[in-house]
């Protein structure tokens, strides 16, 4: 056992000490965070500058529009000019855009926007909305309906969902649950693939470097394999731990960056003047409604369970391939299949967490780590959770028992790669 410890610490330290580990662990999420902070910042500090648009409205269409509060454009109606004559002047008169509405209802270019440079999507959609509303208003009036009455009669319902548990009702933030579930499932998928292939590469490297023979004359192959798998698994956990710390520290830094926002969140007064601010505030409320501890603990469990199960398979695959990378690819594919299937089920399970596939996928041990994380923010029945965890632990023991035998034979075999049939034969033969 002590030897596993020595191997473990070498595998762990040699990876954690690498610069690339620090870079990916701290650098990547930092970049993502800065990116999101920038987006939040930009959306909060909306510029008041409005696009000035010159309009020649021959049809008199826009006269029905009275109130345009949230628009990013300002309309300036031009009189006594034709399209052709004003087209030459609008730039020198200080307009970026020139909207022309023709009186001729048969013309293809009845509504036309001229601009000095390509119009942005927001400007385009803003103007399209404007014209659509105007056309609608005109027809409403023609049919004797008051447009203002129509606006009042249009319903805009926002449905709120509370989950009634024994501990009381809590609000369901479906969007946030969805995002967190998917994020967790995706993260565990990525980590299993990345760290699983690291195990495989480590084993292949030992084999092709011929260190394996020196090593197994000192330690049992099983110790070598377990030391490596546990060491690399610990690297994954360390990375996850650092991410959690970063996340928590970000949560405590944020109030200093956006003081008024946090005030709103804590006072529950989401009815502020800015709608975008309300969205951001809701995201934060949504986060705090999630069972964070449960999510983190499940993540650790399912990462360890899933990683350990797959890592032993990856180690066995690594032990039978030689230098040829293409050979490794061929063998890895069947191992990656269930992981990918798990990912596909997970992306469905976040939409429909109680469907048959989702329940099956979160219990079947080869897909359960990914799929269960996809259901984690929805309340999973206890028996499903327990069965899934038990099966995962059992499958870890089963696969380790089999793959250790394949590994032991494979790591000292050179030359022709054995087929799957032969490998399975190794796995099930006695001692």
């Amino acid at each position: 056992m002590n030897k596993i410890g020595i191997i473990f610490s070498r595998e762990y330290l040699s990876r954690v000490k690498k610069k690339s580990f620090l870079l990916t662990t701290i650098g990547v999420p930092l970049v993502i965070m800065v990116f999101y902070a920038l987006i939040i910042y930009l959306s909060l500090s909306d510029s008041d500058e409005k696009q000035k648009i010159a309009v020649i409205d021959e049809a008199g269409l826009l006269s029905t529009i009275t109130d345009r509060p949230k628009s990013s454009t300002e309309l300036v109606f031009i009189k006594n000019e034709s399209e052709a004559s004003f087209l030459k002047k609008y730039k020198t008169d200080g307009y970026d855009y020139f909207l022309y509405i023709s009186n001729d209802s048969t013309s293809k270019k009845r509504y036309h926007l001229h601009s000095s440079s390509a119009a942005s999507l927001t400007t385009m959609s803003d103007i399209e909305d404007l014209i659509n509303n105007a056309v609608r208003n005109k027809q409403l009036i023609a049919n004797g309906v008051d447009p203002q009455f129509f606006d009042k009669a249009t319903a805009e319902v926002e449905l709120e969902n509370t989950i009634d548990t024994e501990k009381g009702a809590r609000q369901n933030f479906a969007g946030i649950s969805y995002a967190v579930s998917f994020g967790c499932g995706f993260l565990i998928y990525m980590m299993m693939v990345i760290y699983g292939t690291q195990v495989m590469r480590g084993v292949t490297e030992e084999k092709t470097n011929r260190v394996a023979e020196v090593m197994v004359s000192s330690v049992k192959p099983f110790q070598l394999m377990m030391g490596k798998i546990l060491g690399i698994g610990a690297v994954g956990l360390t990375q996850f731990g650092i991410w959690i710390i970063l996340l928590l520290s970000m949560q405590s830094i944020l109030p200093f960056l956006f003081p008024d926002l946090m005030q709103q969140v804590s006072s529950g007064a989401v009815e502020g003047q800015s709608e975008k601010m309300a969205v951001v505030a809701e995201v934060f409320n949504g986060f705090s409604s999630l069972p964070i501890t449960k999510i983190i603990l499940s993540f650790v469990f399912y990462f360890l369970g899933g990683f350990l199960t797959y890592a032993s398979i990856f180690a066995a695959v690594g032990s039978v391939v030689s230098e040829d990378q293409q050979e490794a690819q061929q063998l890895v594919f069947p191992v990656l299949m269930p992981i990918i299937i798990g990912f596909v089920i997970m992306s469905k399970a976040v939409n429909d967490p109680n469907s048959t596939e989702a329940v099956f996928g979160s219990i079947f041990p080869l897909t359960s780590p990914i799929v269960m994380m996809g259901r984690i923010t929805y309340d999973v029945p206890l028996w499903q959770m327990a069965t899934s965890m038990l099966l995962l632990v059992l499958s870890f023991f089963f696969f380790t028992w089999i793959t250790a035998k394949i590994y032991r034979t494979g790591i000292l075999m050179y030359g022709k790669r054995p087929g799957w049939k032969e490998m399975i034969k190794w796995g099930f033969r006695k001692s």
Partner: protein
Amino acid sequence: MHLLTLDSIKKHFESQKAVDDISFNVDQGKIFGLLGPNGAGKTTLIRMITGIFYPDSGSIFFKGNPFNPESDARKIGYMPEERGLYKKMKIGEQALYLARLKGMSRADAMANIKKWFVKLEMESWWNKKVEDLSKGMSQKLQFVTTVLHEPELIILDEPFSGLDPVNANLIKDEIFNLAKNGATIIFSTHRMEQVEEICDKIVLVNKGKKILDGSVHQIKQDFKENIFSIGGNIIPEHLMTHIFELVKFNPGNILVKLSEETTNNDVLNYFIRQDVNIQSFNEVLPSLNEIFIRLVEDTSATTRKFEH
């Protein structure tokens, strides 16, 4: 005392008999040669002695007790023919790691590493990585990692391949030193001139079977062919006799093969009667290389046993 005893060891792989009923003893404190052409089963045999493989049948005794890979691994140092070290690891750390896996404490391991690094002039290498070493340098490092934990049995598979003559001599001296201090060395090779120089006893295996076993001296005696080298002023007219057959004629020196009943003195008497001035007269023993080739090429390979 036998440090190691192999008793009718057999190991079959799917397609062939890698080791087919081999028995021999290795004496404590001696340098033992395990010889054989490529694919003879040497590596499989060594892997069973180091506990990497288990024999299908037969038993191995280490210091009189059945071999237990778990506890005896610490007492064995093995340098495989295909050298292997972690390329990205620093040399000092690597030596420490391997020694600790053999069960040494960190402090003991450090002390021994220092001692060996000084002895082989490797102190300045500590922070280098293995990938930065030349082939000869990594060979030296591999040797050090093999003997670092003071093993009682050291198994060296082709230890001199890739070494220049200076470093080869350095390692050779260390091997002699280790044997003098009580370590037992199994030396696996197909380079016969090294065996003659170093080994006390040898075993020759071919196609999974043992075909020769004995001390180097004894084997040479057993395979001698009554060939003598005679130095003197001999001319062809002197050779008209039936007591010997001419093997090779050089001016001033001839090689002859004596016939069965002829004694050395018969030959000397003959030349004295011919009035030839004999300057030298000595027996030519076959080299191990010749014996090796003769035995291995002899495909009928009738197993010959030479008891000691």
